């Protein structure tokens, strides 16, 4: 039962093949064992988890069960969950027990899902390798010497290693898609505004968006239905008619126009990755889709614009971690300013401090126009590029990352190299577009390759259908890492 998809588990639970308590117990046991090697989870809380499973079993005995009732789901430790330690991967919140539920946690609870645990992540979601976590780096189940990607590395590794049937992540510049690609799973970042950010610890508010991570596109659709809902507590949440994502996955690919942005297909990308993506595109052509050459001329500037806007917002968002009301406070200090300085010096890691410094600098008097305003202009141009491109295509496809999983430590000392691993994913965040990553091959080292799909605004359904149709004719999403379930 541990290898089933969310869809299969949901059906089995409703058929009473096993109970939620049995299922949850089994996942807890497997996860706890595997976690010694993968380090995908920061927190387990068996008592709360099993209590939810018991409750779910009661619901399963009535007519009120949903597709998610009784299914254990791992949540990225960026989501506040009531009574759960919520660390955001930081020493700053090592002992922070949230007194409230994030909107999506509330939704999953309403759907009867079970919180399996809180997954490891780059500190405050700042990182592409999970090496910046205060709780140690997550290891890639395909090769324990390699990174799982980040920042939702724990959520990706957990699904990849069979520690959880599905998980949640958040994506500010690729933090769902990049680790999904590197761990060989499916992950989706919805249109900005579709999933409430209330209770998601903010990194860069105008870019952050939560989304599901799972074994298949179909599972993503099921999870997305729970996650998407208007939330009056998030002013950027959008009121949209409900979409039945899982019911719309059987669309024909015949006539689908796939945009191929020339800027995303260059020799900078590893040859195996290029090959894997090219073969995936051939599969789509076989299914009747046509490839359309498009251009996103401003995309080479996306990483630069992102590393101005995201740190700017982060520098302000992270000001609340001041040692006054909750979280870490330095044990010794001489006065108020010393308390602030020591608390933040000791509570934050190097990458977080780097971004706070960059962000503070670009917002400073005299620099604002040259950096922040200029970056916002680039951001508008990037959105315009996409708007133009979507006049001639229905979905855009590209590699998710320029390479497969890299070695732990390989890029840790070179932030710019690290930042460039998000070069294909960042533009969708800047434009607010939905995007996803699905597995589309293995490289010569048997490491997963990710195919990125970028949809038009609120056109998740089209994107998910395209991913599902691909998964109907290929089995890359079914490949398991050597460590799977061991």
């Amino acid at each position: 039962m541990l290898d089933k998809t969310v869809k299969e588990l949901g059906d089995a639970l409703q058929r009473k093949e096993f109970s939620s308590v049995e299922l949850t117990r089994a996942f807890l046991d497997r996860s706890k064992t595997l976690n010694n090697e993968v380090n995908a989870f920061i927190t387990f809380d068996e008592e709360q988890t099993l209590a939810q499973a018991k409750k779910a079993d009661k619901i399963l005995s009535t007519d009120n069960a949903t597709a998610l009732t009784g299914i254990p789901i791992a949540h990225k430790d960026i989501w506040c969950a009531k009574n759960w330690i919520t660390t955001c991967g930081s020493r700053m919140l090592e002992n922070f027990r949230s007194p409230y539920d994030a909107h999506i946690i509330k939704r999953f609870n309403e759907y009867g899902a079970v919180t399996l645990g809180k997954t490891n992540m780059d500190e405050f979601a700042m990182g592409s390798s999970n090496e910046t976590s205060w709780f140690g780096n997550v290891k890639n189940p395909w090769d324990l010497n390699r990174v799982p990607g980040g920042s939702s590395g724990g959520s990706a590794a957990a699904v990849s290693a069979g520690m959880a049937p599905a998980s949640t992540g958040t994506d500010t510049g690729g933090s769902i898609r990049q680790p999904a690609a590197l761990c060989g799973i499916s992950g989706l970042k919805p249109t900005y505004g579709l999933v409430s950010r209330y209770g998601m610890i903010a990194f860069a508010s105008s870019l952050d968006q939560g989304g599901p991570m799972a074994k298949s596109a179909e599972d993503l659709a099921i999870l997305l239905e729970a996650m998407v809902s208007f939330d009056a507590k998030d002013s950027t949440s959008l009121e949209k008619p409900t979409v039945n994502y899982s019911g719309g996955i059987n669309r024909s690919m015949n006539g689908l126009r796939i945009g191929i942005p020339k800027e995303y297909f260059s020799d900078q990308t590893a040859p195996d990755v290029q090959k894997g993506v090219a073969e995936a595109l051939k599969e789509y052509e076989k299914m009747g889709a046509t490839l359309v050459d498009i251009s996103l001329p401003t995309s080479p500037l996306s990483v630069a614009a992102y590393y101005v806007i995201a740190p700017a917002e982060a520098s302000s968002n992270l000001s609340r971690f001041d040692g006054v009301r909750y979280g870490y406070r330095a044990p010794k200090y001489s006065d108020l300013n010393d308390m602030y300085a020591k608390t933040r010096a000791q509570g934050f890691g190097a990458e977080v401090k780097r971004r706070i410094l960059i962000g503070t600098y670009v917002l400073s008097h005299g620099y604002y126009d040259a950096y922040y305003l200029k970056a916002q202009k680039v951001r508008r141009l990037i959105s315009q590029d996409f708007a133009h491109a979507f006049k001639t295509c229905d979905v855009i496809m590209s590699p998710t990352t320029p390479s497969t999983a890299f070695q732990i430590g390989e890029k840790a000392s070179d932030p710019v190299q690290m930042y460039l691993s998000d070069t294909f994913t960042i533009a969708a965040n800047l434009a607010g577009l939905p995007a996803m990553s699905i597995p589309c091959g293995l490289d010569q080292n048997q490491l997963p390759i990710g195919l990125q799909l970028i949809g038009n605004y609120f056109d998740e359904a089209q994107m998910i259908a395209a991913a599902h149709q691909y998964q109907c004719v290929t089995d890359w999403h079914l490949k398991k890492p050597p460590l799977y379930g061991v």
Partner: protein
Amino acid sequence: MEWEIVIGIETHVQLSTESKIFSGASTDVGAPPNAHACEVDLALPGVLPVLNKDAVGKAIRFGVATQATINQRSIFARKNYFYPDLPKGYQISQMEIPIVEGGKLKFHVNKTERTVNLTRAHLEEDAGKSLHEDFIGMSGIDLNRAGTPLLEIVSEPEMRSSNEAVEYAKTLHALVRWIGICEGNMQEGNFRCDANVSVRRKGDEKLGTRREIKNLNSFKFLQQAIEYEASWQMEQIEDGLAIVQATVLFDPDSGETRLMRTKEDAHDYRYFPDPDLLPLVIDDEWLIRTRASLPELPESKAKRYQSELELNGPDVASLVSSLEAATYFEATLDQFDQKTIKPAAKLIANWMNGELTASLNRAQKDFTQCPINAETLSNLIKRILDNTLSTKLARLVFEELWSGNSSVDDIITEKGFKQMSDTGEIEAYVSQVIKENSQQVADFKAGKEKALNSLVGQVMKLTKGKANPTQVNDILKTKLS
């Protein structure tokens, strides 16, 4: 050489909304510390602000009332700085595009009308409070006030004396209460002024370097602080010293201002648009609705009272000093017809500004809590107008009314307060007085006008105040001529 003082005022007006500007927590004061601080006010990780529309509506009211421009698209920005009672590490405010721009405020200084232009008014959230006295060796933080909506109203530097500054502040204070956007309780910090003060030689066009006096929460302190600060600056310059741009605090005990920080150590607030809040868009319908819901403003009422009712300036100024007073005045006036309305208006004004205000002040009440309602006051005025009551008797009736008796005519009958208007009856008393006061009669006949007053007084005394003094006067004069 003569000096000129230049003053601009920034006022923080707490908007009287039920809940906070970005959270659902109550804005009530007096609760135990942090009882009204919800997860948003505490700035827990992951929380987000949601704008309170009532605060927006109140800001629009202010803009309409001051003939300002309402920006139909304004932007909230983050003002970043660290302070323990600022839970997010930034204050949500408005920077580049505020909700209200321009506008003007008219008021009187020594009977001369002045108009001060307003620069802008923007919405922002209040901070919490640091409590330094309650704990030994530590400070406490109370976030009940954090997130209370503020409208920061900025004037142009157009005031030239502390008197002008105080009149500006008083007029602004009356206006925000009039249009129902602020309770105006200054002790509780509902209405706080910062004064930007500079001095220059008369005739100079260039403004001097200003210093900002922070957080003045009474008109008296505003006046004292400006006067001290201006003379301090003049002395500095006369001693050959330059003024350094700075923020200062006023110490009411010493009556002096003292340095808080200079421009060098001023914060770089790193303003940028708050990505958690969408641009604030106000549609035409909202503007029209607000315009229609606004009461007639004091300026317009004052004009009307002067032209239609022929009341004088000082009378009118008191009547429009609060919406409650004006409402009471008009409700009383409504009881009179076109024929008597002007003399009635004058009498109502006299009573309201005299007896009634004095009694209300003694009882610490306002016109909405007045024990004598408008209809009752009008009945009293009617009995004065038809000569049933003299002023003196009217005062006695008023006292009865104040203590709860509500029928003017019953009081007059029961207490026998009816004015003596029968000429024959009065003549008898007059004759008696003339007979008994030969000295005064002689004095009057010798040209001493004052002697007549004494005789009138005697008649009034004899009649226990019931004789109509005008009639007594006339009869006396006739008899003595």
